[in-house]
């Protein structure tokens, strides 16, 4: 074992997963495009109850207790019915806050969307999706990490990409170090000016190396400085009400960073709790609460960044969908096809994209799951190419040839 006897302060770092920043020069240079916000719904969201195919009889046959009543089903109270979107699909009642964005045509839905993986394992599916790979043999870095590494936007901000929360997401991993940030207000060192000067001197010296871990430390120090200088008035929420939740807090931080123009290009946010095997609820309940957090958060984010929507694209995704039929415990088991949402000023919105595979017996796949008709990589590739100016799609999604679905322009 080649560990040194005399430790230097950064002795272990060269062999870490991080590689030196820009160890290879990105092949592409382009001006910065949109800020991309990626919201991952962890646990496999039941998107069939989020964007309800109320035009399908099979949906109601498969979900006798969990089905969301049709928009015109007068046997159900009006507030418990789906809100019609296009005569066939409708929003779950808890998704209604997003109707406003839908009507402004800045929200597109892609149903029956997902990955080819059929393991129905959360962990395998999430890993493959975050790495953006076809199989485990693909590169270990994340798809966002490879996006950052393959495109030189001339932006050297340590806030070029962030993972919102305590742990940066797997999708961000790669040669560009990415920091986690939960709350701008908490992102500082504590102490009086005298103590702070000493702490800062110590950290500056200790993290002065050019190895990747030291660079990460230097980035953290720069972020502290940037956030301290941020104009609190310019970045304050414009009266829009973010939900009082971790997700609301996360979106609010991202909105502040966008407005403060600190060089943010990509933010990854998680919203967990979607693994609803038991008592997920129909129009109300456990999953409805989560959807409310999601929809009111995105709506507030959209409103808060109204003047910036021209250059902000938000996408939601989940590792897979859930079984078309409800299970015996008022929940749903692991399925296949899911649904993605894309929100922004350059989105062909107010429209459900993709072809609908249907829920009839012959149309379901595996143990009774919605088929996948649009690969999630098609949606992401289009955003990366058209909105973030990165043509290196074959590096970002190796072994995959994306087809453009004209969801963005």
């Amino acid at each position, binding site marked *: 074992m080649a560990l*040194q006897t005399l*430790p230097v302060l950064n002795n272990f770092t060269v062999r870490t997963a*991080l590689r030196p920043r820009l160890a290879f020069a990105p092949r592409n240079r382009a001006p910065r495009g949109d800020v991309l916000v990626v919201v991952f719904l962890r646990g496999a969201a039941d998107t069939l109850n989020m964007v309800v195919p109320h035009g399908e009889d099979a949906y109601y046959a498969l979900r006798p207790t969990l089905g969301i009543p049709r928009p015109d089903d007068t046997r159900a109270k009006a507030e418990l019915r789906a809100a019609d979107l296009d005569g066939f699909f409708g929003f779950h009642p808890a998704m209604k806050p997003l109707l406003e964005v839908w009507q402004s045509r800045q929200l597109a839905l892609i149903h029956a969307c997902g990955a080819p993986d059929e393991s129905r394992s959360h962990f395998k599916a999430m890993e493959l999706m975050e790495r953006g790979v076809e199989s485990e043999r693909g590169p270990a870095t994340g798809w966002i990490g490879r996006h950052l590494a393959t495109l030189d936007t001339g932006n050297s901000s340590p806030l070029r990409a962030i993972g919102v929360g305590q742990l940066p997401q797997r999708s961000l991993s790669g040669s560009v170090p990415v920091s986690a940030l939960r709350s701008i207000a908490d992102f500082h060192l504590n102490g009086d000016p*005298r103590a702070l000067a000493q*702490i800062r001197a110590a950290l500056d010296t200790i993290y002065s190396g050019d190895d990747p*871990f030291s660079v990460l430390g230097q980035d*953290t120090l720069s972020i502290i400085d940037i956030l301290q200088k941020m104009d609190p008035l310019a970045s304050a929420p414009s009266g829009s009400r973010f939900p009082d939740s971790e997700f609301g807090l996360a979106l609010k931080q991202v909105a502040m960073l966008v407005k403060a123009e600190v060089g943010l290009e990509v933010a990854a946010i998680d919203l967990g709790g979607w693994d609803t095997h038991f008592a997920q609820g129909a129009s109300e309940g456990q999953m409805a609460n989560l959807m409310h957090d999601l929809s009111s958060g995105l709506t507030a984010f959209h409103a808060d960044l109204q003047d910036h929507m021209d250059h902000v694209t938000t996408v939601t995704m989940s590792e897979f969908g859930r079984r078309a039929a409800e299970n015996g415990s008022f929940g749903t088991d692991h399925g296949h096809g899911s649904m993605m949402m894309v929100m922004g000023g350059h989105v062909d919105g107010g429209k459900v994209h993709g072809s609908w595979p249907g829920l009839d017996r012959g149309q379901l796949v595996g143990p009774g799951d919605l088929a996948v008709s649009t690969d999630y990589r098609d949606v992401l590739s289009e955003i990366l190419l058209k909105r973030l100016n990165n043509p290196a799609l074959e590096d970002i999604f190796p072994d995959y040839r994306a087809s453009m679905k004209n969801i963005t322009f």
Partner: protein
Amino acid sequence: MTLSRRDFLRLSGLVAASTALASCAPANRALAPLKSVPWTPLPASDFLALNRMTFGPRPEERLRLAEIGLAGWIEEQLAYDSIEDGGTAFRLRNLGTLGMSASDLADVSDQIFDNADRGKVPVELRQGTLLRQVYSRRQLFEVLVEFWSDHFNITTAKGDCYFLKTVDDREVIRSHALGSFRDLVWASAHSPAMLVYLDNQVNHKGAPNENYARELMELHTLSVRGGYTQQDVMELARCLTGWTVKEHFWRGQFTFDAQTHDTGVKSVLGLDIPNEGQAEAERVLELLTGHSDAATFVATKLARRFISDSPPDELISRAAQTLLRSKGDLRSVLRVILLDGLAFAEPKYKRPVNFIASALRMLNAETDGSEAVQDYLLRMGQTAFGWPTPDGYPDRAEPWQGNLLPRWQFAFSLMRNEIPNAEVNLQDLLEISGARTLTESIDQIASLLLGSPLDPAARDELIQTVQAAGADEAETMDVVTAGLLASPAFQWR
């Protein structure tokens, strides 16, 4: 940051008036401070070995290793029952819920404030967990407890797990952490907390719920690479129908409910299973725990925890063979992994618990493991029993990097003694070390925290910059010590 109990009392004006406070004072107040012993620089391989087998070595552990050698140290720790650990028991004595039965725990949670205080039981469990990690002399055992708590992850945030996890922690994880893998899986499958966490209590005849059946194969035994199919998941779920948890007077006890059990014939992994009630899933448990895919999976995870994020294949296969041959004996597997594997060790990034516990242990801090320290764990992303999904906290380095700031905040706050209920007495340590000058003191502390003193040039540069920023000698000592805790080197073990 949340208010500590002490802050809260102070704000309420209760501190001066309350003599009763003494009785709820942290256990450590009643103890004579843990006395440290002098330490000497260690060969890097010994420091690394101790760092893998403990939550950060104390000087006594360094001394013991020097006395009896690596193999002796491992044997002593494997026979954890014979290690005297009364001090830890004393520190835990006020955490009454740790030893309670499920029904008593339910009562405790429901009596206080009319159903409202669901915090007491999980708070005590978290506090007890950290106290054991920091103070127990059975360090290897505690490392294994943490390992299995991830492997059989349960969050206290799900349903009745807020009190059932305390029973699971005691009767599943702590009872079998260094016992047999077969017994661990068996106990976990019969554990009410696990059945609630993975929805098996609602897995009924004609209305199966696949959640537990899938994770039992994917995460607890065979792994996602094991050769099971969706059909096997559905069949195992049928075997597990009726495995549930009692309610009312017997709340929180395991039961097999024949009424909701699917009596049809099943087939799991090619094994035909006749109608025999509870014994059906138990047959599958025997099959799964003795399966070579399970042995490989567990061997891989143990090697990853102790040796390297990418452990050598040969070590994994040797450990897996041992697990199979010994019918799941975890001590035998650990001997292989530690004695054969440590030579192949690669740097492991300290997860938050390891970072905090090692700082507290190495600096001989006094703590009761309560809110203020727990709050740092939360902000670093590793609160005990707080990981929502059944895969447990990640073990590899990468997910944990990129969140340095809370570690720095902890390091500097700790050395300024600003963290309520976590006190470091650097002067005591320096006296024990016999250091006379600032330079000697820093060499001693570096040797304590990093195994051996810093390169003199790096040390002198650090002293100079801190003093140029206005630090006097005492401040320099505190800031440099905190700087060592905050340094890249201390983030790896």
